[in-house]
């Protein structure tokens, strides 16, 4: 723990992502914490043919699909909950641009855990006896499919269950509430699949709403569910989850959620959206784009008190800029 891993968003996307990679993101459900600004950056530099292991669609995958960058996706839930269908992804799937392989919300994180454990396969009673088992978008000619989730016999009781493959992404970008420069991270709110994802991916990039001093880790080591040893890079990503919510820091931006999803319905709308919200230089510039008015509104969150114990350790923008320059 003797080397800073803090790099810029631009550097992270340049150095760690590439066309055709198998990518994992996390991630609470559609409206919860996900590394949305990391997806924006990937879209900005035109990453394509991305294969994604996703516990759940978010505005990030919705955007990547809308620009045609998403080749394939394994996912449990492809909508936006109360905000409706994810129009960008929906369009990509219906036109055949994105191959969507369906699992459930429970199966994806468990397959990531199995990847972290480096297990050969996992025997389970979920996703069987239904079209998650019988229909395979990767192998559509064979229905009912017997290879996606093959049947296996429990050697102890003789019962039949389904065998699942583990997930081991090449790269994962993970939103966290706070991270230090070494890669120790604290998440507030549900972890969803982020803990398992940080262990099953070959490379891990943290997108942190706040960069904090390591002092907070030593005071609250039980909160540090992602320690430095599994992390390759740390990115300062203020409002990186916007327009979705980051527990403790800001609420969902309802207006923008609807607006963004509406725009992603068509190619033209997507271009228009990117003209307005895809043009910025760095994260500081991006925060200006989000704008003070929106920020004032979304940071009035009922969950703000959850951040109180940690405020003394938060680094200012000036300090973060200095840390980046000092490298």
């Amino acid at each position, binding site marked *: 723990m003797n080397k800073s891993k803090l790099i810029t968003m631009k550097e992270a996307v340049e150095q760690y992502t590439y066309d055709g990679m198998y990518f994992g993101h996390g991630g609470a459900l559609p409206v919860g914490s996900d590394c949305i600004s990391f997806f924006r950056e990937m879209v900005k530099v035109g990453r394509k043919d991305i294969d994604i292991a996703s516990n759940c669609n978010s505005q990030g995958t919705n955007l990547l699909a809308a620009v045609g960058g998403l080749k394939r996706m394994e996912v449990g839930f492809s909508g936006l909950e109360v905000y409706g269908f994810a129009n960008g992804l929906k369009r990509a799937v219906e036109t055949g641009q994105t191959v969507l392989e369906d699992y459930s919300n429970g199966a994806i994180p468990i397959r990531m855990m199995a990847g972290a454990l480096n297990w050969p396969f996992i025997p389970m*009673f979920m996703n069987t006896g239904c079209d998650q088992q019988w229909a395979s978008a990767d192998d559509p000619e064979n229905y009912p499919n017997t290879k996606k989730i093959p049947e296996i016999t429990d050697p102890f009781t003789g019962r039949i269950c389904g065998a699942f493959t583990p997930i081991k992404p090449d790269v994962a970008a993970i939103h966290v509430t706070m991270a230090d420069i070494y890669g120790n991270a604290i998440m507030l709110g549900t972890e969803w699949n982020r803990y398992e994802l940080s262990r099953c991916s070959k490379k891990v990039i943290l997108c942190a709403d706040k960069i904090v001093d390591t002092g907070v880790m030593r005071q609250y080591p039980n909160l540090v569910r992602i320690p430095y040893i599994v992390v390759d890079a740390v990115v300062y990503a203020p409002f990186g989850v916007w327009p979705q919510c980051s527990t403790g820091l800001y609420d969902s931006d309802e207006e923008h959620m609807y607006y963004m999803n509406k725009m992603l319905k068509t190619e033209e709308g997507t271009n228009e959206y990117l003209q307005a919200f895809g043009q910025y230089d760095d994260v500081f510039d991006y925060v200006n784009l989000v704008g003070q008015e929106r920020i004032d509104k979304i940071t009035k969150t009922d969950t703000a008190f959850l951040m109180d114990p940690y405020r003394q350790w938060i680094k200012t923008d000036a300090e973060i800029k200095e840390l980046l320059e000092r490298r």
Partner: protein
Amino acid sequence: MDYTRQEMMAIATGREFKDGELAIFGVGLSMLAGFFAQRNHAPGLMAFTEGGVYGSTPVGGLPWGIEDNRISANAVSFTNAIDALGFLVASGRVDNAVIGAAEVDKYGNVNTTGIWAPDTEPWKVGKYTLPRVRLNGSGGANEIATGAKKYLLMVTHEKKRFNEKVAYISSPGYLDGGNTREKYGFPGGGPSAMITTLGILRPDPVTKEFILTGYYPFSSIEEIKENTGWDLKVAPDVQVIPEPTEKELENLRAVDVTGSLRKK
């Protein structure tokens, strides 16, 4: 009394929850039904979300999603998806739950994945063609369908949604009926009722076909049969479901602060 069909459905659903049960709800309607039950008659109902949010009630209106800050503001515990969907739901621990459906069939199988052009459904053509309309996938409903001791299907009662066979089974009910579900060794018991905007259907204990067991004061057996895509059988003891009591309506509306169920 003045109430909407949606409110009747939410109250009828809420009545199925007993005090002290371990329960999981999705967003929207099903969460309203659950928190109504907790407020009305089941104060010890233990509810949690798919992502492992425990001990909380929504603040500032219904959450936009189940990991929204509105459900996170007063939690006692945050864990993760494997905890909630794996350890508690898929394992067989949950007593009761609610799932929604775009389409259901007479054995309680649920489709939330896609709509196919006629006669292009995977099981008809032997391959997995693209859906005409991509829906949301199974989400956590598959864990509920395979793991919950019992669960409720909450569906708007329209003919296009109630079919002899669903295009795609996202979450298994009783599959082809009878004991066909048993082959898969699911820890959960299967759907105990379809609670709709028109009435309540429950599975025949042997054939597992859903039959009409109750209708609302404002609906009728005839209306329900007309809006069901299979030849719906009617239970010999079919009953009129009591309309909401004043207390029930009051408690539901206290939960539904934004009045989302009152829109007709």
